[in-house]
């Protein structure tokens, strides 16, 4: 007879509960998204979720793994939601389906499934699509888009070709190209004052979506789903480099607040760089990992060729995670003094 091993008492936790809470933490950001940019994101969330479950199910079946157990773990849904929130909301339906399928099939399941992927699957989807379809991936609608839900659906499903009328460059991208094209003559304040895509602090509407992610992230930290290390180091790194350059030349470099509330900063700080599977696990490793990602994200978005750098920054740091972990092993109980 086999006996269950101790401990007999177990904390009431499970992978699916963890994943469910991550999804819950995304809700404030999603709510702000829907409120300010329109309900199209809900279509994209649905598309991504269905694709993820389908792709996951198919891959599990092929590997002969128990379907119900792994589909219910919620990890595919979290990946799907992060992809949906990272992709332009009015992108055609097949773009998000392609991206999500690639993330689940290649970036996750081909590496061995849950817990085995060396790269953040959602960021792989973003990176693959922005390289393959750069134009589609950088067309973002402005806040307060006065297009009805039906109209947005038509755009997504290809019945209405008026994409250009509905969307344009992201606030980050517009800032970069604006400053580059009119070198020396244009300034950050001028651009922000003269374009309707900017609000008080950053991109109009997007600043509130980012705040929503911040609230969700703080809740996750409160629930001990994430530790303080990653968000603090990520935000700290962006603050430090953007602050230094902003102090150096406020006309050519946007403020730290602008950078924190634009693009994927908040999503990255709380939901992407915190992915335990592909990130670092030691406390010091987490700090190095997140600081590196924040720094790279800023450099790519300001000096690089892509509108936002969070995805590439996180992926590049994913590469370094194992070695960072190895070099930052904490001393154990009773072995702290190295005398």
């Amino acid at each position, binding site marked *: 007879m086999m006996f269950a091993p*101790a*401990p007999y008492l*177990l*904390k009431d936790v*499970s992978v699916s509960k963890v994943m469910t809470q991550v999804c819950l933490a995304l809700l404030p950001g999603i709510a702000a998204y829907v409120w300010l940019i329109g309900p199209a994101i809900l279509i994209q969330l649905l598309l991504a979720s269905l694709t993820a479950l389908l792709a996951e199910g198919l891959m599990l079946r092929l590997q002969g793994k128990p379907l119900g157990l792994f589909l219910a773990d919620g990890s595919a849904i979290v990946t799907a939601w992060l992809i949906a929130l990272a992709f332009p909301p009015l992108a055609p339906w097949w773009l998000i389906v392609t991206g999500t399928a690639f993330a689940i099939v290649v970036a996750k399941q081909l590496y061995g499934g849950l817990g085995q992927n060396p790269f953040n699957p959602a960021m792989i989807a973003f990176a693959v699509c922005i390289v393959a379809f750069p134009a589609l991936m950088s067309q973002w609608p402005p806040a307060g888009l006065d297009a009805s839900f039906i109209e947005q659906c038509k755009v997504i499903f290809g019945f209405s070709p008026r994409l250009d009328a509905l969307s344009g460059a992201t606030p980050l991208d517009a800032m970069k190209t604006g400053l580059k094209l009119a070198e020396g003559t244009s300034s950050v304040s001028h651009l922000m004052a003269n374009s309707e895509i900017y609000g008080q602090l950053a991109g109009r509407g997007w600043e509130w979506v980012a705040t929503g992610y911040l609230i969700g992230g703080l809740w996750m930290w409160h629930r001990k789903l994430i530790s303080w290390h990653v968000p603090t180091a990520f935000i700290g790194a962006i603050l430090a480099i953007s602050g230094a350059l902003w102090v150096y030349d406020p006309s050519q470099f946007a403020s730290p607040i602008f950078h924190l509330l634009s693009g994927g900063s908040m999503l990255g700080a709380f939901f992407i760089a915190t992915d335990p599977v592909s990130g670092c*696990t030691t406390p010091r490793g987490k700090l190095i990992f997140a600081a590196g990602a924040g720094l790279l994200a800023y450099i790519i978005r300001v000096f690089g060729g892509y509108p936002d750098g969070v995805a590439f920054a996180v992926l590049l740091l994913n590469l370094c995670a194992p070695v960072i972990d190895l070099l930052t092993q904490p001393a*154990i*109980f*009773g072995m702290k003094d190295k005398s």
Partner: protein
Amino acid sequence: MLMNLFKFKGGVKPPTNKTQSLTLPIAQAPLPSRLIVPLHQSIGGMPQPVVQAGDKVLKGQLIGEADGWISSAVHAPTSGTVLEVAMHVQPHPSGLDAMCVVIEPDGKDEWITRETLDYKALKPEEVRERLQQAGVVGLGGAVFPTHGKLTASKTVEMEEMVINGAECEPFITCDDLLMRERAEEVVRGIGIFRDLLQPKKVLIGIEDNKPEAAAAMRAAVDALGESFLVVPVPTLYPAGGAKQLIRVLTGKEVPASKRSTDLGVQCFNVATAYTAWRAIAHGEPVVSRLVTLTGNVGEPRNYEVLIGTPMDELLALAGPKPDTDGIVMGGPMMGFMVPNGSAPVVKATNCLIAHSTKLFPPKAPEMPCIRCGSCAEACPHELQPFEMYWFSRAKNFGKTQEYHIFDCIECGCCSFVCPSRIPLVQYFRFAKSEIWAREREKKAADTAKTRFEFKQLREEREKAEKAEKLAKAAAAQAAKKAAEAAAAAAVSAESAGTEQAASVASTEAPTQTVAVDAEKEAKKAAIAAAMARAKAQREAVQPKNTEALTAAQQHAIDDIESRRSVLAPESQDAAAPGSEKAE
């Protein structure tokens, strides 16, 4: 009384479930139908049985003699008859049987004559000897023979003695009730340890969820005029682990590679102190202990139980509910399901929990590790359990050791918090046992190699000795012959006066000059003998050139021989042994 407490990292807060068994005072468990007393109840050598089937024994009578320094004696828990000394199932996760003395009680519970002693009149080594003879071992669960811990390090001063009354495992309350009801004797027992170890401070750590126990202990300390400090420690599992309690009370961290005495600390459980006092002052060896009966039972309670009581018989006292499907010995965090209800209560049995799937629901299926790091956060030894898990699973045991797997105290905190429901501790036990097995194999291989090499060496030595012996014998023989020859030569030289014969004899058998250097001569003779043998051997295998001669050659030889015999007819006899030798 204010004391600076330290924290240990990690730890978890499982529901304590202690109140159930605290409502009633300690009760005496009745005599069971029979007692199965395992001989091996402590760490160290296996005690040897000193009774056999049919023997009458008294309560407290020695039935198993300590085997070596780290070993502890075992005694009859009550008076009665030894039924058999046989293998019986043990309360051990392996489910293996072990040698036990089975006693049928006679119902009189008649003690041996108990010697009461004033330990202060005894030498320290006598006190330790008595503790060993009384079977006093660590009753916190590790059952390390107590006398083995009562010698202070010669190089490091004993700073603190920590007395463990933390009892951090959920459900268990036996130490709590012991301290509440028998505080004075516990404190007196601590006094014995203090006198042996001479620490500067004695700290009694009790988790702050046991205020009554702490109050009782404090009162006892005051009543006895001792200077022990009773310190409430925060309730956090595993605060009752010796290393964690030492950390909390002294700030010292004892790694796996060191003994606590190296850091000037030693730790004892309260129940151990109690039994030490009973053993020394009342002459009562350890034949019973307090056991918490709890879990899926109608009336959870603490009982004073004779060692050897069958568990199912004992648990019946608390009224297990019908859906009980097993017995967990120890707490729910580190305990284990006993393989069989007939397993006996041993010195390590602090608690029996009636198991039911309602009380402890079956675990959810194991999911892959998502590296969430919860285990590392919960680990009180600040290990990286998920890394050790990964390498244990991959059977990369070298790596598990790089991640300090042997510092794992198997407290179960990591398994408790794992969202993927991975039985981490099981993996670590597996890795440790594999490493031990390999060490054993390596040791066995090394021993075999040494043995083989020794055998080779011995064979060579024997060969050499044999050759030497033979040579000596031959030399003796040769010397004897040489002496005879010399004597003969001397005689013949005298009689014939032939110079030639004398010279032949003197060169070939120089013993003529006699006795003075007889030894030297013997050696020389030995060498000559050896050379002769070698030549003989060579000739045995090599064809002689005197074989298969042609007629002409034979004729020539005969010719020479005839001339020789003409030339020296007398010397023939004398030269014979010499020429024999020279050949």
